[in-house]
């Protein structure tokens, strides 16, 4: 699946998007955050998942949402538009 990052999430990870194939045990957004947090220094921010927000296929979702079937998952800080 495709991951896309915005704002300081993108700056800390160092890429705007990437393809990943998480293990089958990663079932929800919360699982995905935990999985990403184990990928090394650039991904340390995912260990503090409460500061992050997520969208699946361009719709907001909460941490308990299953990721099965997702084409694009976006992870970003709380929004500050307007």
């Amino acid at each position, binding site marked *: 699946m495709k991951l896309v990052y*915005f*704002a*300081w999430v*993108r700056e800390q990870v160092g890429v705007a998007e990437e393809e990943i194939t998480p293990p089958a045990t990663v079932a929800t957004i919360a699982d995905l955050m935990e999985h990403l947090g184990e990928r090394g220094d650039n991904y340390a921010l995912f260990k503090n998942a409460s500061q992050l927000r997520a969208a699946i296929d*361009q*719709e*907001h979702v909460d941490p308990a949402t299953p990721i099965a079937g997702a084409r694009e998952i976006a992870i970003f800080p709380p929004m500050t538009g307007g």
Partner: protein
Amino acid sequence: MTSITVRIQNEPFDINAEAETMTGDAHANVGALVTFTGYCRDEDGRLSALELDHYPGMAEAEIARICKEAAERWPLDALTAIHRHGKLQPGAPIVLVAASSRHRRAAFEAAEFVMDFLKTRAPFWKKEHPKDGTPGGWVDAKETDDAALSRWTS
């Protein structure tokens, strides 16, 4: 049926031009137009620019969802929302919401509703560029913006 228009663009927008498409002869049932324009503040002279990152595709989709919700809650003739992205100077307009209706209360409430939800749900992120050349940083989300939503759900 409310006519909904959503645009995400780098270019400035024109309040009169948007007002003209929503009022006049062809909309003689419209008695009220409320517009909200949000501007880039200089934060007491501290900033040289504000940069707006956004999630293309989702930005349009999410603002359209908010507008649709407003059109279900209030009897609106038309509802327009335009949000800019990119690097903007202090004093520059960032966002426009315009709501037209037969009566003023619906237009006021719908415009404020769209702004309140747009602030916390539209995928935009502001980065400050200080005048003094220091790196600046991403703006933190405000608790007052979350609090503003409670009036629409209670």
